[in-house]
Protein backbone atom coordinates (compact mmCIF):
# COMPACT_ATOMS: atom_id res chain seq x y z
CA UNK A 1 0.00 0.00 0.00
CA UNK A 2 1.39 3.34 -1.00
CA UNK A 3 1.81 6.00 1.64
CA UNK A 4 2.98 8.56 -0.87
CA UNK A 5 2.39 12.15 0.13
CA UNK A 6 0.36 14.14 -2.38
CA UNK A 7 0.88 17.87 -2.60
CA UNK A 8 -2.15 19.44 -4.25
CA UNK A 9 -1.72 22.54 -6.41
CA UNK A 10 -2.54 25.67 -4.41
CA UNK A 11 -5.72 27.47 -5.50
CA UNK A 12 -3.77 30.49 -6.72
CA UNK A 13 -1.07 28.38 -8.27
CA UNK A 14 -0.25 30.99 -10.90
CA UNK A 15 1.08 33.31 -8.22
CA UNK A 16 3.84 30.88 -7.27
CA UNK A 17 6.04 31.22 -10.35
CA UNK A 18 6.73 34.21 -12.62
CA UNK A 19 6.44 32.02 -15.73
CA UNK A 20 3.00 30.86 -14.72
CA UNK A 21 1.90 34.41 -13.84
CA UNK A 22 2.96 35.54 -17.30
CA UNK A 23 0.94 32.74 -18.80
CA UNK A 24 -2.18 33.70 -16.83
CA UNK A 25 -1.74 37.33 -17.83
CA UNK A 26 -1.83 36.18 -21.42
CA UNK A 27 -4.96 34.12 -20.80
CA UNK A 28 -6.86 36.86 -18.99
CA UNK A 29 -5.90 39.64 -21.32
CA UNK A 30 -7.37 37.69 -24.17
CA UNK A 31 -10.79 38.57 -22.77
CA UNK A 32 -10.56 42.39 -23.07
CA UNK A 33 -9.14 41.95 -26.54
CA UNK A 34 -12.15 39.82 -27.38
CA UNK A 35 -14.45 42.44 -25.87
CA UNK A 36 -12.91 45.03 -28.15
CA UNK A 37 -14.44 43.12 -31.01
CA UNK A 38 -17.72 44.48 -29.56
CA UNK A 39 -16.44 48.01 -30.23
CA UNK A 40 -15.74 47.11 -33.83
CA UNK A 41 -19.21 45.61 -34.22
CA UNK A 42 -20.66 48.80 -32.75
CA UNK A 43 -18.66 50.75 -35.28
CA UNK A 44 -20.06 48.69 -38.11
CA UNK A 45 -23.58 49.22 -36.78
CA UNK A 46 -23.02 52.96 -36.41
CA UNK A 47 -21.83 53.31 -39.96
CA UNK A 48 -25.37 52.73 -41.24
CA UNK A 49 -26.53 56.31 -40.65
CA UNK A 50 -24.83 59.69 -40.42
CA UNK A 51 -26.30 60.44 -36.98
CA UNK A 52 -25.32 57.22 -35.35
CA UNK A 53 -21.83 57.52 -36.82
CA UNK A 54 -21.46 60.94 -35.21
CA UNK A 55 -22.63 59.48 -31.90
CA UNK A 56 -20.07 56.74 -32.18
CA UNK A 57 -17.34 59.26 -32.93
CA UNK A 58 -18.36 61.32 -29.93
CA UNK A 59 -18.17 58.25 -27.73
CA UNK A 60 -14.70 57.56 -29.06
CA UNK A 61 -13.56 60.87 -27.63
CA UNK A 62 -14.78 60.17 -24.11
CA UNK A 63 -12.10 59.42 -21.47
CA UNK A 64 -13.63 56.00 -20.88
CA UNK A 65 -13.13 55.11 -24.53
CA UNK A 66 -9.58 56.49 -24.46
CA UNK A 67 -8.67 54.36 -21.44
CA UNK A 68 -10.27 51.31 -22.99
CA UNK A 69 -8.27 51.82 -26.16
CA UNK A 70 -4.98 52.25 -24.37
CA UNK A 71 -5.56 49.09 -22.34
CA UNK A 72 -6.61 47.06 -25.33
CA UNK A 73 -3.67 48.35 -27.36
CA UNK A 74 -1.30 47.30 -24.58
CA UNK A 75 -2.87 43.86 -24.42
CA UNK A 76 -2.88 43.51 -28.18
CA UNK A 77 0.82 44.40 -28.24
CA UNK A 78 1.48 41.84 -25.51
CA UNK A 79 -0.26 39.17 -27.53
CA UNK A 80 1.51 40.17 -30.72
CA UNK A 81 4.92 40.03 -29.07
CA UNK A 82 4.32 36.72 -27.28
CA UNK A 83 2.78 35.21 -30.40
CA UNK A 84 5.74 36.08 -32.61
CA UNK A 85 8.19 35.09 -29.91
CA UNK A 86 6.48 31.71 -29.77
CA UNK A 87 6.45 31.26 -33.54
CA UNK A 88 9.82 29.43 -33.72
CA UNK A 89 8.46 26.80 -31.33
CA UNK A 90 5.85 25.78 -33.89
CA UNK A 91 7.94 26.36 -37.00
CA UNK A 92 11.35 24.72 -37.19
CA UNK A 93 13.30 25.98 -40.17
CA UNK A 94 16.36 24.18 -41.49
CA UNK A 95 19.13 25.60 -43.63
CA UNK A 96 21.25 22.72 -44.88
CA UNK A 97 21.61 20.30 -41.98
CA UNK A 98 21.40 23.01 -39.37
CA UNK A 99 18.33 24.34 -37.68
CA UNK A 100 17.96 28.08 -38.13
CA UNK A 101 18.30 29.72 -34.70
CA UNK A 102 15.01 30.52 -33.01
CA UNK A 103 15.93 34.19 -32.66
CA UNK A 104 16.21 34.47 -36.44
CA UNK A 105 12.78 32.93 -37.05
CA UNK A 106 11.20 35.16 -34.41
CA UNK A 107 13.16 38.13 -35.79
CA UNK A 108 11.74 37.47 -39.25
CA UNK A 109 8.24 37.57 -37.87
CA UNK A 110 8.88 40.81 -36.03
CA UNK A 111 10.42 42.38 -39.13
CA UNK A 112 7.40 41.39 -41.20
CA UNK A 113 5.15 42.85 -38.53
CA UNK A 114 6.97 46.18 -38.62
CA UNK A 115 6.83 46.31 -42.43
CA UNK A 116 3.09 45.51 -42.56
CA UNK A 117 2.32 47.97 -39.75
CA UNK A 118 4.31 50.69 -41.50
CA UNK A 119 2.35 49.96 -44.68
CA UNK A 120 -0.92 50.40 -42.84
CA UNK A 121 0.32 53.57 -41.17
CA UNK A 122 1.22 55.01 -44.56
CA UNK A 123 -2.18 54.05 -45.88
CA UNK A 124 -3.95 55.76 -42.97
CA UNK A 125 -1.76 58.88 -43.03
CA UNK A 126 -2.02 59.00 -46.81
CA UNK A 127 -5.79 59.09 -46.54
Amino acid at each position, binding site marked *: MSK*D*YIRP*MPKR*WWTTRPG*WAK*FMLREWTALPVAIYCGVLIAMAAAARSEASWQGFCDWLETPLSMILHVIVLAFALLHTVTWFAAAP*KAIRVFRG*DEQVPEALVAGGHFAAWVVVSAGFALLVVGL
Partner: protein
Amino acid sequence: MASSATKIEGKTVTLEIFRYQPDDETEPRYDTFEVPYREDWVVLDAINWIKDEVDGSLSYRWSCRMGVCGSCGMMVNGEPKLTCAVFLRDYYPKPMRIEPLEHFPVTRDLVINMDDFMGKMEKLQTWIVPKEPRTIEEGEYRQTPRQLADYKQYTMCINCMLCYSACPVYGLDSSFLGPAALTLGRRYSLDSRDGAKDERAELIQSDEGVWSCTFVGECSRVCPKNVDPAGAIQAGKVEGTVDMMKSMLMPWGRK
Protein backbone atom coordinates in the same frame (compact mmCIF):
# COMPACT_ATOMS: atom_id res chain seq x y z
CA MET B 1 16.38 21.85 13.64
CA ALA B 2 18.80 19.04 13.05
CA SER B 3 22.04 19.72 14.79
CA SER B 4 25.40 19.20 13.24
CA ALA B 5 27.99 17.34 15.24
CA THR B 6 30.65 18.38 12.80
CA LYS B 7 32.36 21.70 13.41
CA ILE B 8 32.51 23.69 10.21
CA GLU B 9 35.39 26.01 9.52
CA GLY B 10 34.85 29.09 7.41
CA LYS B 11 31.81 30.17 5.45
CA THR B 12 28.59 28.22 5.61
CA VAL B 13 25.30 28.17 3.80
CA THR B 14 21.85 27.15 5.04
CA LEU B 15 19.80 24.39 3.43
CA GLU B 16 16.19 23.92 4.37
CA ILE B 17 15.19 20.43 3.34
CA PHE B 18 11.75 18.89 2.88
CA ARG B 19 11.43 15.73 4.94
CA TYR B 20 8.69 13.16 4.77
CA GLN B 21 8.97 9.82 6.51
CA PRO B 22 5.83 7.83 5.86
CA ASP B 23 6.62 5.15 8.43
CA ASP B 24 5.97 7.42 11.33
CA GLU B 25 4.66 10.71 10.01
CA THR B 26 1.63 11.70 7.98
CA GLU B 27 2.78 15.24 7.23
CA PRO B 28 6.08 16.52 5.90
CA ARG B 29 8.38 18.87 7.81
CA TYR B 30 11.42 20.99 6.98
CA ASP B 31 14.85 20.38 8.51
CA THR B 32 17.52 23.06 8.48
CA PHE B 33 21.20 22.28 7.98
CA GLU B 34 24.32 24.41 8.04
CA VAL B 35 26.67 23.25 5.32
CA PRO B 36 30.22 24.33 4.49
CA TYR B 37 30.26 26.74 1.59
CA ARG B 38 32.64 25.84 -1.23
CA GLU B 39 32.95 27.75 -4.45
CA ASP B 40 33.05 24.59 -6.56
CA TRP B 41 30.30 22.66 -4.80
CA VAL B 42 27.06 21.88 -6.55
CA VAL B 43 23.89 21.65 -4.48
CA LEU B 44 24.13 17.86 -4.63
CA ASP B 45 27.57 18.00 -2.96
CA ALA B 46 26.00 19.85 -0.04
CA ILE B 47 23.22 17.27 0.23
CA ASN B 48 25.76 14.44 0.12
CA TRP B 49 27.73 16.19 2.84
CA ILE B 50 24.63 16.26 5.03
CA LYS B 51 24.01 12.56 4.47
CA ASP B 52 27.62 11.64 5.23
CA GLU B 53 28.26 13.94 8.16
CA VAL B 54 25.00 14.97 9.79
CA ASP B 55 21.92 12.94 9.02
CA GLY B 56 22.38 9.55 7.36
CA SER B 57 18.65 9.07 7.06
CA LEU B 58 18.14 11.77 4.44
CA SER B 59 16.84 10.06 1.29
CA TYR B 60 17.26 11.22 -2.30
CA ARG B 61 18.34 9.87 -5.66
CA TRP B 62 21.59 10.65 -7.41
CA SER B 63 24.19 8.90 -9.50
CA CYS B 64 26.31 10.29 -12.32
CA ARG B 65 26.78 13.84 -10.90
CA MET B 66 27.48 15.07 -14.43
CA GLY B 67 24.00 15.96 -15.62
CA VAL B 68 23.24 12.96 -17.79
CA CYS B 69 21.62 10.21 -15.70
CA GLY B 70 18.63 12.38 -14.77
CA SER B 71 18.28 11.14 -11.18
CA CYS B 72 18.85 14.19 -9.01
CA GLY B 73 16.09 16.60 -10.03
CA MET B 74 14.70 18.58 -7.09
CA MET B 75 13.06 21.92 -6.43
CA VAL B 76 15.70 24.47 -5.44
CA ASN B 77 14.04 27.63 -4.13
CA GLY B 78 10.92 26.71 -6.03
CA GLU B 79 12.63 26.03 -9.36
CA PRO B 80 13.06 22.51 -10.74
CA LYS B 81 16.81 21.87 -11.11
CA LEU B 82 19.30 19.08 -11.58
CA THR B 83 21.09 19.45 -8.26
CA CYS B 84 24.35 18.18 -9.77
CA ALA B 85 24.31 21.08 -12.20
CA VAL B 86 23.55 24.09 -9.98
CA PHE B 87 26.18 25.54 -7.72
CA LEU B 88 25.99 26.84 -4.18
CA ARG B 89 27.64 29.99 -5.50
CA ASP B 90 24.54 30.66 -7.61
CA TYR B 91 22.54 31.18 -4.38
CA TYR B 92 25.10 32.18 -1.77
CA PRO B 93 24.67 33.72 0.79
CA LYS B 94 20.89 33.23 0.61
CA PRO B 95 19.49 30.10 2.25
CA MET B 96 18.25 27.41 -0.08
CA ARG B 97 15.04 25.47 0.20
CA ILE B 98 15.27 21.96 -1.26
CA GLU B 99 12.07 20.06 -2.02
CA PRO B 100 11.09 17.03 -4.04
CA LEU B 101 10.02 17.73 -7.62
CA GLU B 102 6.58 19.27 -7.66
CA HIS B 103 3.49 17.58 -9.09
CA PHE B 104 4.67 14.11 -8.16
CA PRO B 105 3.65 12.04 -5.15
CA VAL B 106 6.44 11.98 -2.55
CA THR B 107 7.64 8.53 -1.53
CA ARG B 108 10.03 9.82 1.08
CA ASP B 109 12.06 13.01 1.70
CA LEU B 110 13.29 14.10 -1.73
CA VAL B 111 12.30 10.89 -3.52
CA ILE B 112 9.31 11.15 -5.83
CA ASN B 113 7.17 8.43 -7.33
CA MET B 114 7.65 8.42 -11.10
CA ASP B 115 5.62 5.35 -12.09
CA ASP B 116 3.20 7.58 -13.97
CA PHE B 117 5.84 8.80 -16.40
CA MET B 118 7.21 5.33 -17.05
CA GLY B 119 3.76 4.15 -18.06
CA LYS B 120 3.25 7.10 -20.37
CA MET B 121 6.44 6.43 -22.29
CA GLU B 122 5.31 2.92 -23.00
CA LYS B 123 1.85 4.07 -24.10
CA LEU B 124 3.45 6.34 -26.69
CA GLN B 125 5.44 3.50 -28.26
CA THR B 126 8.79 5.19 -27.76
CA TRP B 127 10.60 2.79 -30.02
CA ILE B 128 11.10 2.31 -33.75
CA VAL B 129 8.36 0.44 -35.57
CA PRO B 130 10.25 -0.17 -38.82
CA LYS B 131 8.75 1.35 -41.93
CA GLU B 132 10.70 -1.11 -44.06
CA PRO B 133 12.05 -3.97 -41.99
CA ARG B 134 15.65 -4.78 -42.70
CA THR B 135 17.95 -7.66 -41.77
CA ILE B 136 21.31 -7.14 -40.12
CA GLU B 137 22.99 -8.46 -43.28
CA GLU B 138 21.39 -5.66 -45.30
CA GLY B 139 23.32 -3.20 -43.13
CA GLU B 140 22.25 0.12 -41.71
CA TYR B 141 19.37 2.29 -42.86
CA ARG B 142 20.59 5.29 -44.75
CA GLN B 143 19.81 8.46 -42.87
CA THR B 144 21.27 11.75 -43.98
CA PRO B 145 22.54 14.31 -41.49
CA ARG B 146 19.52 16.41 -42.44
CA GLN B 147 17.12 13.57 -41.58
CA LEU B 148 19.01 13.07 -38.33
CA ALA B 149 18.65 16.75 -37.52
CA ASP B 150 14.86 16.43 -37.80
CA TYR B 151 14.62 14.50 -34.54
CA LYS B 152 18.07 14.67 -32.90
CA GLN B 153 17.22 17.45 -30.46
CA TYR B 154 14.35 15.38 -29.08
CA THR B 155 16.62 12.40 -28.39
CA MET B 156 18.51 14.45 -25.81
CA CYS B 157 15.83 14.02 -23.13
CA ILE B 158 17.34 12.47 -19.99
CA ASN B 159 13.91 11.78 -18.39
CA CYS B 160 14.77 14.00 -15.43
CA MET B 161 11.12 15.10 -15.00
CA LEU B 162 11.94 18.79 -14.46
CA CYS B 163 9.51 19.70 -17.25
CA TYR B 164 6.64 17.97 -15.47
CA SER B 165 7.35 20.01 -12.36
CA ALA B 166 7.24 23.18 -14.43
CA CYS B 167 3.96 22.28 -16.11
CA PRO B 168 0.78 23.52 -14.37
CA VAL B 169 -1.37 21.50 -16.74
CA TYR B 170 0.21 18.29 -15.49
CA GLY B 171 0.02 19.58 -11.92
CA LEU B 172 -3.73 20.13 -12.24
CA ASP B 173 -4.49 16.97 -14.20
CA SER B 174 -1.96 14.17 -14.32
CA SER B 175 -3.76 12.40 -17.16
CA PHE B 176 -1.92 14.85 -19.48
CA LEU B 177 0.83 12.88 -21.17
CA GLY B 178 3.16 15.77 -20.47
CA PRO B 179 6.19 17.40 -22.08
CA ALA B 180 8.84 14.66 -21.99
CA ALA B 181 6.63 11.76 -23.05
CA LEU B 182 5.04 13.71 -25.91
CA THR B 183 8.47 14.86 -27.07
CA LEU B 184 9.80 11.30 -27.08
CA GLY B 185 6.75 10.17 -29.02
CA ARG B 186 7.42 12.89 -31.57
CA ARG B 187 11.11 11.95 -31.68
CA TYR B 188 10.20 8.52 -33.04
CA SER B 189 7.50 9.83 -35.37
CA LEU B 190 10.05 12.18 -36.98
CA ASP B 191 12.62 9.41 -37.49
CA SER B 192 13.01 8.43 -41.14
CA ARG B 193 13.23 4.75 -40.10
CA ASP B 194 9.89 4.73 -38.29
CA GLY B 195 6.49 3.73 -39.63
CA ALA B 196 4.16 4.16 -36.65
CA LYS B 197 3.52 7.87 -36.89
CA ASP B 198 -0.21 7.44 -37.50
CA GLU B 199 -0.65 5.05 -34.57
CA ARG B 200 1.14 7.41 -32.24
CA ALA B 201 -0.82 10.38 -33.61
CA GLU B 202 -4.05 8.93 -32.24
CA LEU B 203 -2.74 9.35 -28.72
CA ILE B 204 -0.70 12.49 -29.38
CA GLN B 205 -3.75 14.24 -30.87
CA SER B 206 -6.10 12.97 -28.15
CA ASP B 207 -7.36 14.86 -25.08
CA GLU B 208 -4.43 13.59 -23.02
CA GLY B 209 -2.07 14.71 -25.77
CA VAL B 210 -0.88 17.97 -27.28
CA TRP B 211 -4.27 19.70 -27.13
CA SER B 212 -4.20 19.71 -23.33
CA CYS B 213 -1.11 21.88 -23.55
CA THR B 214 -1.93 25.56 -23.06
CA PHE B 215 1.57 26.60 -24.06
CA VAL B 216 2.83 27.97 -20.79
CA GLY B 217 6.31 27.32 -22.15
CA GLU B 218 8.00 26.74 -18.79
CA CYS B 219 8.93 23.16 -19.69
CA SER B 220 11.38 24.38 -22.30
CA ARG B 221 12.77 27.02 -19.99
CA VAL B 222 13.65 24.56 -17.22
CA CYS B 223 14.90 21.77 -19.50
CA PRO B 224 18.59 21.22 -18.64
CA LYS B 225 19.32 19.69 -22.05
CA ASN B 226 17.61 22.24 -24.33
CA VAL B 227 15.26 19.63 -25.68
CA ASP B 228 12.46 22.18 -26.11
CA PRO B 229 9.43 20.05 -25.32
CA ALA B 230 7.15 23.08 -25.75
CA GLY B 231 8.36 23.31 -29.34
CA ALA B 232 7.76 19.63 -29.95
CA ILE B 233 4.22 19.94 -28.64
CA GLN B 234 3.37 23.07 -30.65
CA ALA B 235 4.76 21.46 -33.78
CA GLY B 236 2.57 18.48 -32.95
CA LYS B 237 -0.45 20.76 -32.84
CA VAL B 238 0.42 22.31 -36.20
CA GLU B 239 0.86 18.88 -37.71
CA GLY B 240 -2.42 17.65 -36.25
CA THR B 241 -4.25 20.67 -37.64
CA VAL B 242 -2.74 20.28 -41.08
CA ASP B 243 -3.64 16.58 -41.10
CA MET B 244 -7.19 17.37 -40.06
CA MET B 245 -7.56 20.03 -42.76
CA LYS B 246 -6.18 17.68 -45.35
CA SER B 247 -8.59 14.91 -44.42
CA MET B 248 -11.50 17.38 -44.42
CA LEU B 249 -10.64 18.97 -47.74
CA MET B 250 -9.35 15.88 -49.47
CA PRO B 251 -11.02 12.88 -47.85
CA TRP B 252 -9.87 10.78 -50.78
CA GLY B 253 -6.21 11.72 -50.17
CA ARG B 254 -5.86 9.63 -47.04
CA LYS B 255 -6.08 5.94 -46.64
